[in-house]
Every structure is written in structure tokens, then in C-alpha cells.
């Protein structure tokens, strides 16, 4: 099964992701205009985009452990997935700015005053250099520093999940599951460090 996925994935070009990426957005907009997002489509669109971004980020974090522990190799999709997450989270932010808050003066006040927004904005800010240096040229130019820089993914995902936890009303399980998944996926990396390099599979680039 794993082998089959691995060989099938080799035939799947990563650029397909860029073609597919806008489709959910178009679908959400269609739903929103036709009543499919309920009677409060702004909040629904904002949440769907943020949730999708976070889910893809968790998938990005899962790629290395999946390869190490399950032998599933999805490395060649990591860049495309990372950019996809950045795309959705940027739109999530734009919906918040333009459709939700609407009032310029209130936007800045919210960013500095409200912890969940501060945390979310910080997570987004950390993703900007990652998106900007996702091209081959940057990978070559930055060399070893590129790997170091892209470890910003770790705090970015944690902040994204924390952002979700902080905005929940009452004690809600779902955001905690996302945060738990992020912590678990990061902990799997810590384990590699402290137990040394047992195999050669751990070295991943891309």
C-alpha cells in the first residue's frame, strides 16, 4: 500500500496543487452567495479558510514523521503544500480585514490588544519569509541557513493552533485536538534529536 502510494505520488506533479488550490475558495464563494454558508457567510468563510490553512500546515508537519515512521514519502509535495497553506491563511486574514472588522482604526487596536489576534498575526508574519524563500534560487543561495530559517514553520503552526484555542468560547475539544496534533508532530522531531540519528531516513531536504 505504502509502496503503491509512493510510486503513484512520483507520477503526480506538485504543480497540480497550484491548479487545485483556488478551487475550494471558488466553491466557498459560490456557497456563500447562494446561501450554502448559512445566514452569516462572512464568519463562515473566515473560519473555513483558517481551518483549511491550519489543516494543511499540520499535513506539512506530518510529512517528515510519515516518512520516517511509515516509509511514506510525500516530500516532493511539501513546498506546494506549504505555499497552499500560506495562500489560504492570507485569504483568511484578508476576509477578516475587509469583510469582518471593516474598520481600519479597529484593526490595529485588535492586533495589539487581543491575544488571539496578536498570536494569529505573529504566526502569519512568521510565514511570510518562508513563502518568500520557497523558490529554488533562495534554497541555493541560503544553503544551510535555509533549513534553519524554515524551522520557523514550527512556531508558526503552534501559533496557528493556539490562535484557534484562544478564540473558542467555553471548553471546546476541537481546537485542543489541533493544538495536540501540532505538539505531537513537533515532539516526534525532538525525539529524533535526543535519540541521535538511528537511520539515514531522517535527513530530509526540500
Amino acid at each position, binding site marked *: 500500500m505504502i509502496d503503491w502510494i509512493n510510486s503513484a505520488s512520483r507520477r503526480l506533479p506538485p504543480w497540480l496543487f497550484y491548479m487545485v488550490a483556488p478551487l475550494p475558495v471558488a466553491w466557498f464563494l459560490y456557497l456563500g*452567495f447562494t446561501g450554502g454558508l*448559512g*445566514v452569516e457567510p*462572512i464568519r463562515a468563510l473566515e473560519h473555513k479558510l483558517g481551518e483549511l490553512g491550519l489543516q494543511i500546515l499540520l499535513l506539512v508537519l506530518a510529512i517528515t514523521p510519515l516518512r520516517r515512521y511509515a516509509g511514506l514519502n510525500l516530500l516532493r509535495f511539501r513546498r506546494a503544500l506549504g505555499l497552499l497553506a500560506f495562500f489560504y491563511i492570507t485569504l483568511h486574514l484578508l476576509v477578516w480585514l475587509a*469583510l469582518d472588522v*471593516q474598520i481600519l482604526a479597529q484593526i490595529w487596536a485588535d492586533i495589539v490588544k487581543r*491575544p488571539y489576534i496578536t498570536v494569529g498575526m505573529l504566526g502569519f508574519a512568521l510565514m511570510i519569509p518562508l513563502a518568500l524563500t520557497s523558490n529554488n534560487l533562495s534554497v541555493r543561495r541560503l544553503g544551510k541557513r535555509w533549513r534553519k530559517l524554515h524551522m520557523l514553520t514550527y512556531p508558526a503552526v503552534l501559533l496557528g493552533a493556539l490562535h484557534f484555542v484562544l478564540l473558542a468560547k*467555553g*471548553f471546546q475539544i476541537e481546537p485542543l485536538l489541533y493544538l495536540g496534533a501540532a505538539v505531537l508532530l513537533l515532539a516526534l522531531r525532538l525525539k529524533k534529536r535526543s535519540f541521535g540519528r538511528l537511520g539515514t531516513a531522517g535527513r530530509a531536504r526540500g
Partner: protein
Amino acid sequence: ALAGLAGRGRAEGEGALTPNSWEEITSYNNYYEFGTDKEDPKAYAGALTIKPWTVTIDGMVDRPGDYALEDILSKMTIEERIYRFRCVEAWSMVVPWNGFELADLLELAGVQSGARYVAFETLYRPEEMRGTAYPVLDWPYVEGLRLDEAMNPLTLLATGIYGKDIPNQNGAPLRLVVPWKYGFKSIKSIVRVTLTDKEPPTSWNKANPREYGFYSNVNPEVDHPRWSQATERPIGGGFFAKRQPTLMFNGYEEEVAALYDGMDLSKNF
């Protein structure tokens, strides 16, 4: 017993309010006993049995006891009240409720002179309320009002919307409506009303006292710690709905401001 459907509510300028549609009012709800998503109550509240329904009235009353809802309703005159509804999450609707004044129910039970507060409790029936499987809040949901708030003529016990029976997701068969307070004060599916001399515990205050006070009056000047309360988004405007300024006491300042004379509303939030 739907008398005075065209009867005027008491809020100033009420004639100018345009009610939201039935669809909007009944498909975008917070009723965490059925789930935390806005669509959950409509999807799952159908499981709730509302007949027969009994309301226990106890505490400092002359005639405590279990009151069958139909007996209560036989003594009440149902009228229509078109009220603004402002959720603490900064969205709002206008709802044409049908119901009777809470004061009339309290009169039925006979409030004793020492009573100062009214406590309310929502039904807790896990086998019909799938959301209660999770400790989102400390079930059952409880709320409370000061007696003078409870006796205010604006304070309504609602049994219907648009002249129809109130749907389960909106708090059938009997819910409170306190239009100058955030929506969560308007407790749904009431099974107990208790008169007391002490400020009763309230669910959201127990869950997070820093964010939710006992009073929870709509106040554009006192922000929720996590978001501004200065503006609200009216439901029903689609993708381009404009935010509108939130009104002090949700627009009922003239009727209720006197209840809070001399109180620091940023402390008693």
C-alpha cells in the same frame, strides 16, 4: 391563545425595526446543549421532547410547585414583541417574539418580600442533548436576574416567533428574553425558576468570570476581553453586511438605564 399579535412592544422606536427572516432566526443559533456550531441546534434540537413540559417554581414564593406549562399559558395573554437581539459575539438580529411578561409568571407564584434575585435553569437531558456529552459548560445551564430586572416590563418569557410555536433550537417551549442584555442571558428551555435573596450563579460567569459578568448588559463602551463590543454585524446582509454601531443597553436605555443608577458598569459588566 395568541392575542394582540399586532400589539405594540414597549421599546421606543420599535416600529422602525425590521425583523429578520424566520430562516435567519431559526438556523443561526447558540444552544451549546446541541453542539457549539451555529448550525448544530437546528440540526439536532429536533431530538428534544417538549411535551409534556413542567416548570418548577420554588424558593421565596408563596405558591411553590411544579407548574404544567399549559396551565401557566392558560392564565397568560400572549403578545408580540419585536426586539433587537445582540449576541455577545458581536452579531445581532431583530426577532418578533410571542410571549408574556416574566412579571406575570412571578405574580402567579407570589414573590415573597425578601426575594431579590430570580434564578433560572435549562433542561438537562443528555439522551436528547448530544452537546452535553462534552464539558463545554457546567451543565445544566443556569442564569439569573436581579428581581427589578426580572419585573421590568421589557423582560419576556417567549413561547413563539412570528406567531408560530418557538422552534426547539430557539429554546422551546419557554425561554427568557432580556433584550438589553447579551443573548446568553436569555436562557432557553426553562425548567426551573427560583426566587432567592442571593445573587445566583450563572453559567458563562462560572466558565470565565473575567469575560462574562452577572449583569452582561449590552454596552458598546465595555469590550469583551477578546473582542470589541462597539459595533455589531446584523445577520442577513450576506458577504457585504456592514457593521453597525452597538447601542447602549441595546437601544433600550430609556427603559432600563435607571435600574443601574450609580453603578460602575465597567466593574459590574
